[in-house]
């Protein structure tokens, strides 16, 4: 069996995890206006170029941890945690001032170039056994469900480093949770239609009596 020329020359195959977090309401200071911001990070040191995605990812190496995800034939609910360690207090601020919950998360697994070890632009043609196409491969798609801060305080230097853990729910999880919809009460109605007063009397009607047919 003929090997692809690129694979035939390689001595090892590694993989890199790429994470993209799209924060719709991001800001670095409490008074700054919100803007859309992308966190693009990888679990390798140095910049990782992903040709297929048209983006570069900032490698933070061992400071990034991701819990394992499952791969099944049909979509299933899944939850992962992304840990970002070694953050200074200043870096922590933008997580506090931004609205991280609900941000879209995508995780790819990429196979790097044999020569540079970082650029993910090597694509084995389709049809060859062991071929990898596309590269990188989308592994997880979901949303930030919750955010957790852990502080490690160094008494000697009187400084602290922080860990941010992003709890992410897969899109399937979101679909299972979000089935409540609109409810027949004024708060729910005004959440979607602020000037609509159609449901305003529902709470009062629960305890009301109507003397239907009574003589005046």
């Amino acid at each position, binding site marked *: 069996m003929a090997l692809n020329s690129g694979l035939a020359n390689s001595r090892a195959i590694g993989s890199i995890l790429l994470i993209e977090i799209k924060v719709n309401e991001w800001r670095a200071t409490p008074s700054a206006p919100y803007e859309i911001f992308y966190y693009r990070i990888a679990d390798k040191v140095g910049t990782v170029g992903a040709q297929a995605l048209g983006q570069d990812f900032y490698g933070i190496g061992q400071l990034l941890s991701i819990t394992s995800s499952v791969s099944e034939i049909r979509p299933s609910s899944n939850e992962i945690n992304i840990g970002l360690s070694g953050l200074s207090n200043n870096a922590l601020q933008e997580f506090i001032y931004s609205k991280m919950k609900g941000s*879209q998360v995508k995780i790819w697994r990429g196979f790097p170039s044999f020569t540079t070890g970082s650029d993910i632009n090597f694509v084995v043609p389709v049809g060859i056994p062991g071929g990898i196409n596309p590269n990188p491969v989308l592994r997880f*798609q979901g949303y930030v469900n919750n955010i957790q801060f852990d502080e490690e305080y160094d008494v000697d230097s009187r400084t602290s480093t922080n860990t941010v853990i992003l709890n992410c729910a897969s*899109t399937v999880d*979101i*679909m299972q949770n*979000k089935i*409540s*919809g*609109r*409810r*027949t*009460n004024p708060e729910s*109605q005004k959440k*979607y*239609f602020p*000037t*609509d*007063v*159609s*449901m305003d*009397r*529902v*709470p009062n*009607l*629960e305890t*009301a*009596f*109507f*003397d*239907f*047919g*009574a*003589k*005046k």
Partner: protein
Amino acid sequence: MSFIDEVLTVGSRLFNTISSSDLGRTVAKTVALGVILNQTQKAVNKQNSKPDVANSSQPDRFVREQLSPDTKHAVPVVYGTAFVKGIITDAWLTTDKTTMWYCVTICEKTGNTNLGAGAASVLSFEEIYLNECLITFQGDGITVASITDSNGNTSTDPAGLIKIYCFNNGSTSPVVPTGYTNGSLNSAYALMPNWTANHTMSNLVFALIKVEYSKEKNVTSLGEIEFKIKNTMTQPGDCLYDYMTNTRYGAGIPAAEIYLS
């Protein structure tokens, strides 16, 4: 002769019979008292059991109605065809206390067909049931003409007393049930007492029901009402796409994240 005359007659007879000794008088008085009480009770009972033709009509006891709205009720979504009972979200009693108005919220107005790129979905009222009896309307598609149960028995008791105004997309979208036509339909806030233009019932399918009180026709409350709703959105892909992308009653997934083919 009234029952008082009967009691006095018996009492006087007994009193005249016993008048000799004290002991006999005491015994006689006790017996007489018992007899009088017995006769009195009988006479009262007899009087009560007499039919009084002149005053036979009972006072019209009104219905003290308590509704069952629910602030936690989730507005359902209908794809294809479904039976929905709806829930009361507003009610008014007119000042003469003879007419009740109810607003029954039925379901959500859904999005566009053809994976969101086609025509707007249309929800229609196929049939309406009152106390499990199918309603037949008069020509206006609003006023009840008769109701028919599952055995085919028809009653015209509620005829003219109940009116059902249907809306398939908020207060300004009046419709009539399938099979009827009416060119002069009003907005919901032009019908429902105390409603204004801010009662928009946005993106809701609902009905306003007007009930006129009639003890003779046994129309004294709304009863159990059920709607057969038909949505033109029937294709599975359309329904899934609509549910996945809708931010009000669905999962709110951005359309860009859904691969369509």
